[in-house]
């Protein structure tokens, strides 16, 4: 391969990363729509419980810290991969997955408790908007976890190639993005909900 060809590989990387950033921006709009809907419906409790009655703040704070740590660890994995130390990268990535998994299980248990107590999404407009917004974030996390499994498997079978490294970069962008969205959910839904 001559130097021109490697230039093209670089461009391909740049294109993919730019395209992925644009995708993330569309996801920002998607979440913005859900946030707006939540903001409109948050007081429409229709005689049912409000956020103040439902949210267990220590639990949510734990969830938050776990997700933030997961994001941090994901960053460590990318740094390790850039240095070329495969074992560390793999290890940090496994930890990312584990923490993400704990987060999603905690969210499911929170949802489960609400439903069992008779406060499902069918109870009121507020709860519908709450489940949709938080659940959409959870669905994104789930997609991220599936992606992570595939990525780990690809790294395991192919090692660190251009394409696996590119996908690791994209994944970390995705994961940090979900982190940012969660911070907004934590602030707007939970903190403002109990205020």
């Amino acid at each position, binding site marked *: 391969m001559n130097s021109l060809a490697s230039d093209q590989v670089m461009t391909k990387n740049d*294109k993919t990363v730019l395209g992925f950033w644009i995708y993330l921006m569309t996801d920002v709009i*998607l979440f913005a729509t859900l946030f707006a809907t939540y903001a409109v419906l948050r007081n429409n409790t229709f005689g049912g419980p409000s956020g103040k009655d439902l949210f267990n703040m220590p639990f949510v704070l734990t969830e938050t810290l776990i997700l933030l740590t997961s994001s941090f660890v994901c960053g460590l994995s990318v740094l390790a991969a850039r240095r070329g130390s495969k074992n560390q990268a793999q290890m940090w990535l496994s930890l990312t997955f584990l923490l993400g998994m704990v987060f999603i299980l905690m969210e499911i248990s929170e949802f489960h408790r609400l439903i069992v107590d008779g406060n499902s999404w069918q109870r009121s*407009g507020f709860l*519908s908007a709450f489940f949709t917004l938080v659940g959409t974030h959870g669905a994104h996390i789930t997609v991220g976890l599936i992606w992570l499994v595939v990525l780990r498997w690809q790294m395991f079978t192919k090692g660190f190639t251009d394409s696996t490294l590119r996908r690791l970069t994209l994944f970390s962008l995705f994961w940090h993005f979900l982190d940012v969205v969660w911070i907004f959910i934590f602030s707007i839904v939970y903190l403002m909900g109990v205020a």
Partner: protein
Amino acid sequence: MFGRLDLSAFQHNIITLGGIATMGIAVVGIIASLTYFKRWKWLWEEWLTSLDPKKIGVMYLIVAAVMLLRGGGDALLIRMQQVLSVGDSKGLLSTDQFQQIFSAHGTIMIFFVAMGAIFALMNLLVPLMIGSRDVAFPFLNATSFWLFATGAVLVNLSLAVGEFGAAGWLSYPPLSELTYSPGVGIDYWIWTLQIAGVGSLLSGINFLTTILTMRAPGMTLMRMPLFIWSVLGSLALIIFAFPILTATLALLSLDRLLGMHIFTSEMGGNPMMYVNLIWAWGHPEVYILILPAFGVFSEVVATFSQKRLFGYTSMVWAIWAIVLLSFLVWLHHFFTMGAGGDVNAFFGIMTMIIAVPTGVKVFNWLFTMYRGRVHFTTPMMWFLGFVMTFTVGGMAGVLMSVPAVDFQIHNSLFLVAHFHTMIVGGVLFGAFAGFSYWFPRFTGFRLNETLGKFAFWCWQIGFLLAFGPLYILGMMGATRRLDHYDPSMGWRWLFVVAGSGVLVIGAGVGFQILQIVVSVWQRQPSWQKVDRLLRISKIKKALGLSVTENQKVEPASDPWNGRTLEWSISYPLPVYNFAVIPKVEGRDPFWVAKQTKVQPAKPAYEDIELPKNTPIGLFIAGGAFLFGFGLIWHIWWLATVGLIGVIALITIRMSDDNTDYIITAAEVENLEAQRRRSA
């Protein structure tokens, strides 16, 4: 096992059966002729699995054309009902059927005809005009197309299996909620748009990346053809607007599938939230459609006036002013909601302001013609028709932007006349202009001009007949979606005129089909032959012999004396578009090159990397189809199979690193030499 799907889904009345029979005959006819001519392999290898944007563009065009016929048939039924159903007569259609038909008409015309035409133009032209060999993500591009086609299949399937939505093309809740629309119609509507909409969103990401990263060296932003600028504006709108549609449809779907109360009228839901959200997408959507049409006209006017476009910079700024303002006007679709005087005044004023950049564009086109050498070809006729029609429609729009006036004519036929003036006179005329302008670029011959002009006049006159009366009817108080009225209203003769207009437009469509058939039949000597003739006549002239009339020929690959890069390649277009990526030194690069007549240096060929064909995009769309169909009919296992299929297919594709092939420099040199020899 089959959810809500049982035999009653297949019971239809005579008119629906007629529609189903027509579609059935068409499908059987296509399958039979493919089998008879042994074309299945060709179809699969050359088209269905292709990642070449030129071919994907053609496929978009075919879907859009078929859907235009379907949507036009709906339009004919709507007008027929309004002519017949007066007083004691109830017409041919039941009320429910009429509602399904106007809902399907709007949905089909916007999502599958207008969007299809726009994406066809983007696929065919964006890489060629920016001097690129491909789009940024070819596989994603094919997937987008197949998702779009899946939406088109679903909307037509609803005719045969079940029913379509009957709550208008935007399905406002609470009417579209489970309480009032318990059937599958709204679900068909949701999943048709959701699947096609995700395709559009992915296309938006793809083409935005393409334009930003893959322009030929030297093509700075301010050197891009205006068509590319207008597409860029349209893409920016897609990026910002389509996620809102995705979210809104998902929310409505959650209400219907899980019993949520987001847009319901009880339990704390808020139907007006839906109306806000859908128009926060819907208003930008109309600019998504019209901006590329503006771009087409900018190219057409400059080419056929043989002049550089007047006011390039102001055209660019006008596009971006429209992009920005189009997000600040959505509330004018529901001034009657009662948001209060201040809010209505703000949105009214914003709506009036958006007429300013649009006016700038109209004047720039007219100034381009001024003192130009104007050639009255078919594309130019479409342009002139557009200027007249669009200006009238625009003024009607400014009229309606006054909230006090809007309270009178809200949801009347005046509104219907207004937006048809914009979308038929703007988007559709633009698509037709683009079609006849760029047709020879991809086929090697021009469309028949005489029949093209017949088609244009039928469309133009038919349009005025069909929609002129609606302005008057709207003023007289006729509401949209009206399937019955009393003769004492005195509306009938106007509806008869409007109905006859639809027939004249139908004749226009007939001429367009005839135009294509005749042009293919009598196509001029292909460009290779033309080139040979040109050489012969040169030799004859040099020898002092007379040149006969039929040897009077046009420049080979450049029939209109074009200005932009897509005309710089000789026919037929090679799969890699450009053997050597051109270097751009200014606007209208091909025009400049022709004026300066620089002898091209010996080209330095390089290895070209192109994507291999793959059917996975098609399969992903198949998974999306199963997913959508399963959710529509509550066949949960089918939806699960579809979803898992999609995830598995994406994983398979992402695990494949061997997706490209290389055409080596030597092979390119060979191919180019062959192309020159055959020319």
